[in-house]
């Protein structure tokens, strides 16, 4: 044993001496460090665990287990976490993590800066009419830029904002429910709210959906010109909040009238709250305009119909929204 070691050492020295001629020994760049055999084993174990997880992922995927998403996530996540651990142990224990000292770069090189400036300045020294050329170039740049930007106008009807005043409602149009069945006045009960759509019209237009509620006629306090807009106390408003176009999907109705606040239509996005009794005025929340009201009438068959156009355009505010009434054309 002892002899063997000595022989090996001797051989090693011989080998070194032999190798010396071929490749000159260079100074180390990366600092030397002590070996860490335990860490090596840990890394190997972690890599094996990662392989096991990855293989498990393949198995789970191929066999299409139940709760597939969870198992796949667990296997893939496990493989990744073991790989990550292996790399981090490797980085901390198996390579040298010496702290280097490195010079920060100088903040700018004045000589080069001057040279750049000089090149630019001297390049223009032949030019005599700088301002004229500059003006012409500016004009060309501006015109060319405008020409380049112009096709962006094709993105939408940029200058024609007429469509923002559109409403499918007009006098006589019936209100129908989700399945297209006309709403009867008798269907509408108090303390509930209903969604109505225009018969035979696109329901995905902002002005199409309505929210309907029934209040005691005596409880109504509509503006004078809207006195006959709510037959039997049935009121219809645009279902689209004039704040930011969400659907008014909440109806607050008191269970004990003496103590609780009056009925209100509420938008769930930013809690704009509208009073249906007095024509949809904003009671609370951020909406800057009242809820547009649609006048109703009841036909001979007892069905609800629009009796005219909304009180104001539907949808969020913009520059011209207060300038005109909505139109159905």
């Amino acid at each position, binding site marked *: 044993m002892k002899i063997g070691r000595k022989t090996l050492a001797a051989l090693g020295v011989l080998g070194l001496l032999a190798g010396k001629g071929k490749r000159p020994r260079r100074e180390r760049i990366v600092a030397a460090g002590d070996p860490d055999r335990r860490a090596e084993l840990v890394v190997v174990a972690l890599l094996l665990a990662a392989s096991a997880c990855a293989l498990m992922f393949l198995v789970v995927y191929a066999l299409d287990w139940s709760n597939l*998403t969870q198992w796949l996530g667990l296997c893939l996540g496990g493989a990744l976490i073991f790989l990550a651990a292996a790399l981090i142990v490797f980085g901390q224990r198996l390579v040298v993590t010496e702290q280097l000292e490195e010079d920060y770069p100088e903040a700018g090189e004045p000589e080069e800066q001057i040279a750049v400036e000089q090149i630019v300045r001297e390049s223009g020294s032949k030019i005599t009419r700088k301002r004229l050329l500059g003006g012409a170039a500016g004009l060309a740049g501006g015109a060319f830029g405008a020409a380049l930007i112009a096709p962006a106008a094709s993105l939408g009807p940029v200058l024609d904002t007429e469509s923002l005043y559109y409403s499918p409602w007009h006098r006589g149009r019936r209100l129908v429910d989700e399945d297209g069945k006309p709403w009867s006045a008798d269907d509408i009960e108090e303390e509930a709210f209903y969604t109505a759509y225009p018969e035979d019209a696109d329901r995905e237009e902002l002005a199409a959906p309505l929210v309907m509620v029934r209040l005691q006629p005596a409880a109504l306090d509509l503006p004078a010109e809207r006195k006959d807009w709510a037959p039997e106390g049935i009121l219809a408003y645009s279902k689209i909040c004039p704040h930011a176009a969400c659907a008014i999907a909440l109806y607050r109705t008191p269970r004990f009238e003496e103590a609780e606040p009056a009925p209100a239509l509420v938008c769930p996005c930013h809690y704009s709250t509208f009073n249906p009794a007095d024509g949809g005025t904003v009671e609370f929340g951020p909406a800057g305009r009242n809820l547009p009201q649609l006048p109703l009438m009841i036909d001979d068959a007892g069905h609800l119909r629009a009796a005219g156009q909304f009180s104001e355009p539907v949808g969020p505010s*913009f520059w011209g929204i207060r300038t005109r009434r909505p139109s159905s054309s």
Partner: protein
Amino acid sequence: MIRRLVTFVDERSGAAPLLRKTLRYAFPDHWSFLLGEVALYAFVVLVATGIYLTLFFEPSTAKTVYHGAYEPLQGMEMSKAYASAIHISFDVKAGLLIRQTHHWAADVFVAAIVLHLIRVFFTGAYRKPRELTYLIGVLLLFTALLEGYLGYSMVDDLLSGMGLAIGYGVALSVPFVGANLALAIWGHPFPGNADFWSRMYIAHVLIFPVLIGGLLTAHLALVASRHHSQFRPRRKVNGERKLIGVPTFPGQAPRSLGLMLAVAAVLVLLGGLVQINPIWLWGPYHVSQGTNGAQPDWYLGWLIGALRLMPHFDVVVWNRTLVPNPFWGGILFPMLVMVALIAWPWLEQRFTRDRRPHNVLQRPRDAPVRTAIGSGFLAWVVMIFTFGAADRVYVFLGIPYETQLWFFRVAIWIVPVLLGVVVYRLCLALREKEEVERDQQAAVRSAPPSPRPEGSFPRRAETGAAPPPGSSEGRTRRR
């Protein structure tokens, strides 16, 4: 073997000197420097999972009737976009894992950027020569917000539709040109025409990712060219001139790669085990539908808070709606935050008259005014963010929404100021405590064995070793 490879590459590209420099580039060691890396790796996961999702997703509002594995939606009419997202979730093997991982990665991406920004701000890492790096970082944050919004809006479930409706309201609210702008984007009044869906899709899968990738590259290139900033080194070197750090190779590379895999692991585990955005429960969107308790992804919470806080008025002049209400919370507020963030380094330079380059970071207490203003500003945004969840607070704690609204309308202006003052005092106190300790140490070092009456300290002038108070020595050489 290595030598042959390097020789091959170098003889054909001349890359060896650069490669050598890169391998020995020093990374200063501090956990908080990893936040930006986490964001980077979340982005890598986003790109990888995102590419997979594009192989199945159909960005179309064309109507279809659902016939798939998910029973409750059977036979329902919906857009192809929504149907394909449901298809990914139920019929594509591993589809739900990838979709949820993608969604989680987006949330973590923005969170990491925000934390990174906070770290950079409070340590003064944005100071000369790194203002441009910081500026690009701020732009990255806002690009990432828009990208995330587009991503969850494309799915066309009820919540995405509600989010888009709000986006439409906000676009319309731009003074003067809002209507033209909204029609240019949507092609038609909300919910828009088919073009809008193509636009949103290409913006989410190409335009914004490329923009983010480009900004990210510029951000990293600038970091590398000026080198990392560092906290004051413990070793006796001038930290402004010498950077102390672990070299890329072999020290930093395995650790950083390990961090990448760890980030990916956490995201995949979240994606597999923690449900996020179960779109099949929300149902398809129609303009006539909404739901209570609708909340955006967390990173837009500050905007919903701001929209909700506004009192109800439009600014109207001669029947013209000059400033529709959503403008304040939806555009002015985020713009204000962005402009304030971008302007800060230059404002600070102007007020401190400090135009020298800085490589050594400050601790928050080293710059009390900045720390105070930053804390106040952060508190302002965080409070507005918190109010965005007021409806949930009402549901869980029963505090009336109206009460919360009035509380926050007042408190968002008072609390930040108070916090700023408190933080300022705290910074001064910490500094003072440190100075006292330093003097004590200096005193002990200069005259350790000499017997002194209890409680009395030699004055600084007597010790000789400690610098006079307030001298530049005392400020810069703190070890």
